[in-house]
C-alpha cells in the first residue's frame, strides 16, 4: 500500500509491504523494516534496525499527532494540509489588517478609535486570558477602519476585533 503524508508540512510518500511479523517501508528510494506493536490505544512500540522507539499517537480531527522523544510531529493528509499551508501565507498578508483575538479570552480595553492612525507595534487592544493581560499590537502603520468588539466581551480565538486599512 502507498501513503502520502505531510509531516510538519513536508511531503512524504511511503509504500508499505508485510514481511513476516514486520512491515517493509520504502521511502525516497531507501527501505527499512519496522516491527510495530500496538501497546494501547495511543501507544506504539516500534523497533527499526534494532533501535526501539515508544511513540504516542493521538488522532485529532483531520490530523494525527505523533509524540516521540519529547517532540510532537504533526501528520496530515496532503489534500487538506497543503491547502492550509498556502492559504496560510495569503492570510498572513491580509491578516496584518485583520486584527483577531490570538486566544480565547476577554477584551479588557480598546486603545484606539475608528479613523485613528496607528504606528507599527502600537497597542490596539488588551485581551485577558488566564489572568494575564496580552497587548494586541499593530503589525504595520495603518488606519483603524472598524472596531468589531468592545471592552468586556468574551471572545474566541480568531474572532475579528479590529479592521485596519492602509493609508491612501
Amino acid at each position, binding site marked *: *500500500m502507498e*501513503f502520502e*503524508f505531510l*509531516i*510538519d508540512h513536508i511531503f*512524504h510518500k*511511503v509504500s*508499505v509491504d508485510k514481511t513476516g511479523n514486520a*512491515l517493509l*517501508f520504502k*521511502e525516497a528510494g531507501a527501505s*527499512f523494516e*519496522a516491527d*510495530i506493536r*500496538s501497546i494501547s*490505544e*495511543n501507544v*506504539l512500540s*516500534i523497533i*527499526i534496525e534494532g533501535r526501539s*522507539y515508544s*511513540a*504516542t*499517537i*493521538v*488522532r*485529532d*480531527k483531520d490530523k*494525527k*499527532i*505523533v*509524540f*516521540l*522523544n*519529547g*517532540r*510532537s*510531529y504533526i*501528520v496530515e493528509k496532503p489534500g487538506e494540509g497543503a491547502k492550509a499551508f498556502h492559504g496560510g501565507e495569503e492570510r498572513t498578508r491580509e491578516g496584518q489588517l485583520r486584527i483577531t483575538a*490570538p*486566544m*480565547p*479570552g476577554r477584551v*479588557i*480595553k480598546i486603545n484606539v478609535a475608528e479613523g485613528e492612525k496607528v504606528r507599527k507595534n502600537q497597542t490596539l487592544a*488588551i485581551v*485577558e*486570558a*488566564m*489572568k*494575564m*493581560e*496580552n497587548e494586541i499590537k499593530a503589525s504595520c502603520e495603518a488606519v483603524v477602519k472598524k472596531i468589531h468588539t468592545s471592552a468586556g466581551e468574551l471572545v474566541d480565538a480568531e474572532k475579528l476585533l479590529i479592521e485596519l486599512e492602509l493609508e491612501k
Partner: protein
Amino acid sequence: MINKILIANRGEIAVRIIKACREMGIATVAVYSEADRDSLHVQLADEAVLIGPPPATDSYLNMGRIVQAAQAAHSQAIHPGYGFLAENANFARLCEKEGIIFIGPNSNALELVGDKVRARQTMEKAGISIIPGMKSIPKSVAECEAAARTIGYPVIVKASAGGGGKGMRIVSEENDLKPAVEAGMREAKSAFGDESVYLEKYLEEPRHVEFQVLADNFGHIVHLFERECSIQRRHQKIVEETPSPALDDALRAKMGEAAKKAMQAAGYNNAGTVEFLLDRNSNFYFLEVNARLQVEHPVTELVTGVDLVRQQIRIASGEKLSMAQNDLRQRGHAIECRIYAEDPANNFLPSAGKILFFKEPKGPGVRHDGGIYSGWDVPIYYDPILAKLIVWAENRDLACRRMTSALDDYAIIGIHTTIGFLKDIINHPEFRAGRTNTGFIKRYFESWGEKGKDPGMLRPVLAAAAFDELNPAAHVQGAESRPSRKERFSPWQSLGKWRIGGI
C-alpha cells in the same frame, strides 16, 4: 481536632491538599465554579459544592459563598491554597468570626504582611534591610511620578496586595509610568480585588532567594532553608530549586535568622515564606512575605523530608511544632519546573483547550503535582499553571539530568505547554553552572524557538503514521467523541477511599 477541611481552591494545589488530608484521615470538601465541574479536584474530594459562575470574582473569590459552603458541609477548617483568597485578611477574619479555622496565619499578621507597604515599614523597624521605595500607597499618578524621580528609574510598579507577578510593571522612563501604573491597578484589581499599587527601586539582575518558615501558635519558629527562584518570566517563577548555588553555610544561617526575625516581627503563625533579593555582593534585602503555601513548596519538602501541608494542618489544629531548628537538614538537591498552558514559541500566549493525551513522567526521585488528565478542557478563566514537575537527586548536576530525562518523558498533547522551553533552560550552560539571576530569561531566552527536529525520528514517525492508517481498529478515541468518565480518569487512581474489608 479537625476532621473535615474545605479547600477553597482548584487545580494542582487543591489536589495536593486533598491528598495530604486523606493521609491524615481528614475528609475533604471541594468547591468549584461552573467551568470546573470536570476538574480533577472535584473528582478526588469526598464532597463537592458548586459556588458560582466561571469568573473567579463570582466563584473562587466569593467569600460569603465559600464560608456558607463550609458551614453547610460542617467543615471545621478552610485551606485556601495559594492565590485567590489565600492572602486575603478579610477572608481570614470572616473565617475567625464564623468560627471556622483558616489554615494560614492569623488575620492580623496576614493583614500586616499582605499589605506590602506596611510590611516594609515593620521590617525596617525590626532592622532588616528593605529595597528603597515608597512607604505608603500613592493617591495619584502625580505622586508616583514625584516618588519615581526621587527613587530614580528604573522603578517597579507593585500591587500592594499582590504576588505571582500580577500587577507588576518595570518602568525605565517617566513617559511609561502612567500607563504602567494604570495597567498594574487593573491587573491587581482583577487578581486580588484591591487596586493599590506602589513603587520600588528596580534592582537589576539580582537573585531571588526565599526562606520557608513554620511557626506554631505558641511562638516556636523554624526555617526550612532557602529556595532559589531566580528563573522568572514576567516576574512569574518558572524554575525553582534548593539549595541555592549562591549561598554558603554562613550566608544561609544569616538569612535564615533574618527570615525568622521577620516573621516574629509580624506576629506570624503557620507556614510562610520570606522573600529576599540577593545582589552580587551577597547583600540581601527583604522583598515580601508570602503568607501562604507556595507553589514551589515541594522542593523544600524533598530536601528536608517535611510535609508542609501536613504541618500547616497540624499547626492550625493547635499542635506544637514537632521539630527544632537543629533537627532540620538539607539533603540532596531538588528542582521544580512549572508546567504552564502557554505557547513559549509565540510570546507565551495562554493556550486553553482540550488535552488530547497526557502522560506524566515517573521514576526514582520524580514527583508530579498535577491537576490535569487526558480529555480535560483547560478553561480560560484561571491561572495557566497545569502541573509541577519536581525531581530530587543527590546533587545539583544529577538533579538537572533527572529533570531533563523526566521532561523528555512528559507528554501533554493538544495544547501548547512550556515543557520544551523548560528543557532548554535546564540544559543551558549558565543554568548548569548555577549562574542564575532574575534577568536570565530575558538575557538568554528572549526570542526562544523550538530547536530543529531530529531527522533520525522521521522513520519511526512515518512508520507510526502508516501503521495507524493500516489498523483503523485503533481509532477508538477521536477528538470529537468524548470518552466516558471512567476512561478519563482511571479508577485505579481514584479508588483511594476504598479499602478491602473496610467499613
